[in-house]
């Protein structure tokens, strides 16, 4: 599918839910152009020169923060990393006050991760001259992860429409899965979910997905298997008897993968719990595109930053 949209409607990327299929295609097509930049001898283009991007990470993150920072640097933006620990947040400053102070220093964009769903939206509505990119808000959305997953699927399989994607694991506490369901259903892929009952939200079928109850059912006929991390930190206590038991019923192993279609690809948003949701032989095996996802993450984030910061700011002038 090739895009017909030439710019994004919103100044912000708060989630996949508000995007149209055309806008999703525009971001993925643009990312194809940016992937080439990372393979050049000089991995830098001047598109966002002079723009200041603040990475406001109020929750731990390695991959996403590093990926955004690399994307910003390859676009020649100035970057500033702000994390909760070691800042005035520890002295009790509220998010709004922190943001007001950062905005007073005239950034162009804020990339934000926060444990409270909707907090990027709050900032986006408060600051009308600043583009806010959601880098994960609680269990709500993580749009750039879903976009890089879709980019990887499209690159590997040539399309999204009609592709059978099975998402397995911690559906309940995952923001990645919510963004992925929105994206994949908008692009007409077939989504199947599998999880222990305690990790499967009720009525999730209303989002247009198929729910199955065993790993084998989910693997059967899948083109793409997306394993989710068991969010030990978000659960408080385990929603199943033991990690060993989880591995035995929902862990992806080479033996179980035999039921999938030939050419199946295995994805994981990271960080992985090896031996819990995924066997090392799968994570490092020929099916795995997990490191391609990481590479593609930079291209997709460059596309989003460019479309919001470079190409978009002029659309309103």
């Amino acid at each position, binding site marked *: 599918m090739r*895009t017909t949209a*030439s*710019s994004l409607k919103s100044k912000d990327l708060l989630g996949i839910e508000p995007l149209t299929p055309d806008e999703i295609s*525009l971001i993925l*097509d*643009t990312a*194809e*152009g*940016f*992937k*080439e*930049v990372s393979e*050049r*001898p*000089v991995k*830098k*283009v*001047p*598109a966002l020169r002079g723009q200041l991007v603040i990475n406001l990470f109020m929750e731990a993150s390695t991959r996403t923060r590093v990926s955004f920072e690399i994307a910003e640097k390859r*676009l020649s933006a100035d970057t500033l990393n702000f994390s909760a620990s070691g800042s005035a947040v520890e002295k009790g400053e509220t998010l709004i006050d922190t943001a007001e102070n950062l905005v007073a220093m005239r950034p162009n964009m804020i990339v934000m991760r926060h444990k409270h769903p909707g907090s990027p939206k709050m900032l986006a509505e408060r600051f009308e001259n600043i583009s806010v990119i959601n880098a994960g808000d609680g269990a709500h959305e993580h749009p750039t992860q879903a976009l890089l997953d879709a980019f990887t699927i499209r690159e590997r399989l040539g399309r999204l429409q009609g592709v059978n994607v099975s998402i397995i694991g911690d559906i309940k506490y995952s923001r990645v899965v919510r963004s992925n369901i929105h994206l994949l259903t908008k692009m007409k892929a077939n989504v199947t979910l599998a999880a222990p009952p305690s990790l499967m939200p009720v009525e999730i079928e209303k989002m247009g997905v198929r729910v199955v109850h065993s790993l084998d059912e989910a693997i059967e006929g899948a083109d793409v298997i997306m394993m989710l991390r068991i969010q030990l930190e978000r659960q408080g206590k385990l929603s199943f008897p033991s990690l060993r038991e989880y591995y035995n019923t929902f862990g992806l192993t080479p033996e179980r993968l035999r039921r999938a279609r030939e050419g199946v690809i295995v994805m994981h948003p990271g960080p992985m719990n090896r031996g819990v949701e995924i066997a090392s032989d799968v994570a490092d095996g020929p099916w795995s595109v997990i490191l391609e996802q990481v590479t593609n993450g930079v291209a997709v984030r460059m*596309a989003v930053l*460019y479309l919001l910061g*470079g*190409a*978009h*700011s*002029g*659309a309103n*002038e």
Partner: protein
Amino acid sequence: MNVKKRLLDGSRMVRAIRRMAIEIVERNRGIDDLMIVGIRSRGVPIAERIAKEIEQMEGQPVATGILDITLYRDDLTLVAPQPVVKPTKLPESIEQKVIVLVDDVLYTGRTVRAALDALVDFGRPRQVMLAVLIDRGHRELPIHADVIGKTVPTDAHEVIKVKMAELDGDDEVLIMEK
């Protein structure tokens, strides 16, 4: 917009491109180290046709590439909507090569300025030449073309429309009035 005049039809365009190819080979005294690089989007088919003419003349193929300059534009935040960013494709290193940049119309010179910036991010060519199908004047930067298909004096309110069979269905160059 109204068509004011047809500057080139299909057969005249073929001849113009053939002459550009001859001039490139002459100026370079052969095709050693030569790479023909089209600027997206209409520079690309013109570059390919020049390369084809050179191959017919010289009996061996010449390297071709594609340059996307969207990210190097100086009007990134002024013009909307922007074209979708596409990959730059260069078949080999440009170090010590003679690069012929190809575009359809030379006007303000800003596209060429952006193309030069984009190009040097890939290395240090020995020489860069500029070949354009139409030179319409009104430069805003100190840039000139080395090889020109047709020079056309224009008014600033006129628009040059280049159509290429590969992208637009047929070949012609029109001068339009706003």
